[in-house]
């Protein structure tokens, strides 16, 4: 098994924003297995239905630093990995587009916002599907990935995750 890390952050929605991004600046290889969004918004807002993307990046800078957490604390530290939210990102390929509802979840509601609370529903991109024939999103040197909000919503703060492995080859 390769050393596994999770980049996790609460991020406020804003228009055309790289919600959570990762860029590999070193010689190791980052492989991204899970992209997640979980609705943890807890105050009433005027709902906004928006669109999201999972992208490959060729550049990522600025933003607010996010420190990935190791699944195993004995793993070697990450080297030359940039992880930020709200960063300045240059996207190249789009792996997935989907819609997402920016609204608070209520205890008795039946809207999509309530679906988005649940962990299985929040796994918005699962590149391999568990199939060994499929690759995860591979980020070699100078490449990265992000969960990107191309829409215009400015409401809610939700949880963003990218789970990835770090290996020499």
């Amino acid at each position: 098994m390769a050393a596994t890390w999770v980049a996790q952050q609460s991020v406020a929605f804003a228009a055309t924003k790289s919600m959570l991004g990762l860029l590999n600046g070193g010689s190791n290889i980052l492989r991204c297995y899970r992209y997640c969004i979980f609705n943890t918004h807890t105050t009433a807002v005027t709902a906004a239905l928006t669109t999201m993307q999972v992208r490959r990046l060729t550049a990522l800078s600025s933003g607010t630093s996010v420190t990935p957490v190791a699944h195993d604390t004995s793993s070697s530290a990450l080297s030359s990995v940039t992880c930020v939210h709200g960063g300045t990102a240059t996207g190249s390929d789009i792996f997935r587009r989907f819609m997402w509802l920016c609204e608070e979840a209520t205890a008795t509601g039946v809207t999509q916002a309530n679906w988005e609370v649940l962990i299985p529903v929040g796994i918005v991109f699962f590149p391999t599907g568990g199939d060994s024939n499929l690759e995860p999103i591979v980020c070699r040197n100078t490449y990265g990935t992000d969960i990107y909000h191309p829409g215009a919503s400015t409401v809610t703060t939700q949880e963003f995750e990218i789970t990835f492995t770090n290996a020499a080859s």
Partner: protein
Amino acid sequence: MAQSSFTAIAERVDVDPGRDCVMAVFNDAVSTSGKLLGIKAVRIVYSSPFGDDVSSIYGLQGKFSLDRISAYSGGTEASSVKQDTGAGTLSSSIKLMTFPTSVTESGGRIRAAGDAPAGMLITGTVNFQSMLRAPGICDANEGGRCIEGHNIIHKMWDSDTEPIMLHEGEGLACIQRVFGVPRAMHWNILIRVVSTGYTYRYAIEDSGTPYTVDSPIWCLFNTSGSGINIEIYVISLVGFGEYNLPRFRMIRTGADPDTVGGETVSIVKRDTAATIGDVIVKKGPIVAYPLAGNHGVTMNYLDYQGTPILAMIQQKADLFRNFMIVSPQYTVTTTPSLRLENETERWPGDRRGAGAIDDDIIINPGEGFAIVGGIQNQSGTYPPEASEMCLVNVEIDCYQSTPSAVYPSEDDVRNGVDYGPTGADYDGDLILPAEADVKDGVFYGADGTEYEGEYAGGGGSGMSKGRVVNQ
């Protein structure tokens, strides 16, 4: 003069199917001691703060996080269960603690998620959480294997990925970050010992939410020196129960405190110098049936048909008061220690002017006073059972009346007069003579003036003149 007073407190209690009593206070005194319990007030509050939504008692969700920790203190330890009976007992150095007093976060957040309750409405539309967080409902297909809707963490099935590992000296805490709805929460945690491959399960039932925000609900810790590493495979937040606002009724019970089950809780005396004994307090869920005997009509499941039940009728029916926790009347913030209360009036004979009812609820020796969950609402639309989701704190203010009178000997009390602390404890057996048998002019009886003797001397006490002969 004030009697010896105390409060019986039960925290984070709920009901279980068939065991719907959340708390009971028993008068364990013997009948001749004369000790009585008086019930002055009952308070039921939700066990933790609500979220900020004021529009609905079941408003917004809360939020919790799973964070790495390097230390913890306090809490109540939960036991693990082996998945394989052939496995060794899990090392005692692996600790799962509910409501630890504190944890030391070590800067690594694994996940944050909403805690929207998965309750169901018996008569209404269920929300998706209730469908998908119910046990056994599978949603996402992750790697050809199912991940159930109620999973918060599930080990990824990609062979190249690691589960979350806890080395010695490391732990994981579940911390409440924002309050939503206080309720019973049920957590299941599955871990694996790396060296042996054996797996162990923890089940935390009715854990509730903490009293203050940013406080831990539970933590799993691999204590230094354990010699093992553990992997976290699954963490589930299973929800069940129904949304109906919890309703309770108070009853006088004849249940035996030694056999009702539950936990014994200590009383909190108002005066530390007071001596209060022969009181047993049990925290539920327990079974407490209404007291046998003719106490009126049992109204446990009566359809009220929209008619309010008069307080006097409730008491006659051994159903003192039906009350419910009402919606918040004001915003509850996440500031610690703010709680909602629905306090009963002092019962009875209170400001409503019920007139003839002016006694406290008195619990005699051998009886108990119980708070029982579940009652049909006035319109009869809700079922009588209390929801499993409900989790409350209950406080009962009581006093114990201890007799201080010294009663005279029965030999000193007139025959046929019953007296004593209950009015029937002793039976006088002193017999006064009839007036005809007491010498005329002799007063006797109460205050020495109640009766006057009428017996005139001569009749049997001396000789007639004719019988006395001078010698």
